[in-house]
């Protein structure tokens, strides 16, 4: 056999093998079924993940707020992430000043007396999904999700 014939043979073999590999990847497998009821409770993360002193201070105040106020005054925020987590995530995405502006805007939307939350998508536990990435004033970061969608809580 000539070199070209060998090449053609191996290409054909590769195509056939890769076809079956790709098909195998699409075949569904045995599922990991669990009897447990879904638990939508997400515990607080009190840990300090960063060595940045500004973040340390921010997280300390947030932890104190969660422990003494938020965990005691009931479930008042219709959104996920909640306002305090929104502020932390916003500070990570941008800076403390911009995050403060985002937080006050979020607080206003939270206090919407007309309960005009129909344009937000939901998470599985029923809250409205409102991530800080949509409010960084960077059009490219906005991930628009229509109201009919249900987003995974985690």
């Amino acid at each position, binding site marked *: 056999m000539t070199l070209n014939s060998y090449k053609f043979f191996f290409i054909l073999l590769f*195509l*056939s093998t*890769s*076809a*079956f590999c*790709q*098909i195998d990847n*699409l*075949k569904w497998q045995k599922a990991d079924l669990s009897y447990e009821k879904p638990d939508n409770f997400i515990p607080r993360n009190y840990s300090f993940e960063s060595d940045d002193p500004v973040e340390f201070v921010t997280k300390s105040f947030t932890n104190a707020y969660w422990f003494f106020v938020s965990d005691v005054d009931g479930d008042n925020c219709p959104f996920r992430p909640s306002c305090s987590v929104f502020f932390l995530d916003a500070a990570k995405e941008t800076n403390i000043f*911009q995050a*403060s*502006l*985002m*937080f*006050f*805007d979020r*607080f*206003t*939307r939270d*206090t*919407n*007396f*007309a*309960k*005009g939350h129909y*344009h937000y998508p939901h998470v599985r536990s029923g809250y409205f999904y409102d991530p800080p990435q*949509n*409010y960084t*004033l960077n*059009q490219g970061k*906005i991930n*628009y999700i*229509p109201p009919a969608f249900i987003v995974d809580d985690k």
Partner: protein
Amino acid sequence: MKYCLIFFFLIPLSTLPQSSFDFHSPENIKKFADHLFCQGDYLRAVEEYESIKNSNLNDTIDFKIMLCYSEIGLYQMSNLSEVRLSKSIFKKEAECLSLKNRFKASPNSFYKISEIKVYPFSKEDRLTLNYFQKLTSVSFLLGSNELISKDEIINPFDGYEKKTMLSFYEMKVNPACKSPALAGVFSAVIPGSGKMYVGEWGDGITALLATSLLAFLAYDNFRADHKTRAWIFTGLGAFFYAGNVYGSIAAAQIFNARINFEFSEGINLFLEQKNYFMPEYDFCN
């Protein structure tokens, strides 16, 4: 007696053909694969067809393999199957399907093929060229930010399709977007009005009430000489005011993102309804 014995032997021998049915013969695999194809079970069908394609040289099987891969989203595998159809009766259909696969794999950048002018088909074939131009028009609408002429977009189409593409073109050129800068200016002048401009009346009224209340409380406490409280309310009021201006700009951006999303969804729905301008192949009747 002799004939009785012969008859008695023939009974067990006659059962042999039934018990030796070959499920995995190429003919039977093809029959089963055709059944799966007609049921819409494309993943199983393509696996069956792949196992017999070398022993059963058949243009229809090769084309069905290409169709199956396309249906289950393996566009590259589908296009690789086109090689076997280059000299078959399904050559033109395979070229069109290959274009559809390329489009579905990256709809926003399909139009760049026409820019680099390296066409994956023979330009002499008017049908395939027209099909390519249709998909390129749609891709321009989805992915390009450049201004394109109306004629370029709608010329490949006719009838109802032309009307629909014209309306999409109008939406692309004149989207119903809101200006974030204008929303910010509105909210700077009257708190909450920027949000009302974007259509969020509840948020706008809340922002107006909150900022007004805090401003009043600050003024009232300054007047009553309660300086500490007054400054607290002033600070809160300032933050709510700044947050309202910021939020109005963000709300306008989200509004525009919604307009873009609905535009893309509208086009995708149109493509699904039209089966990406491909004919429906009926191999089952």
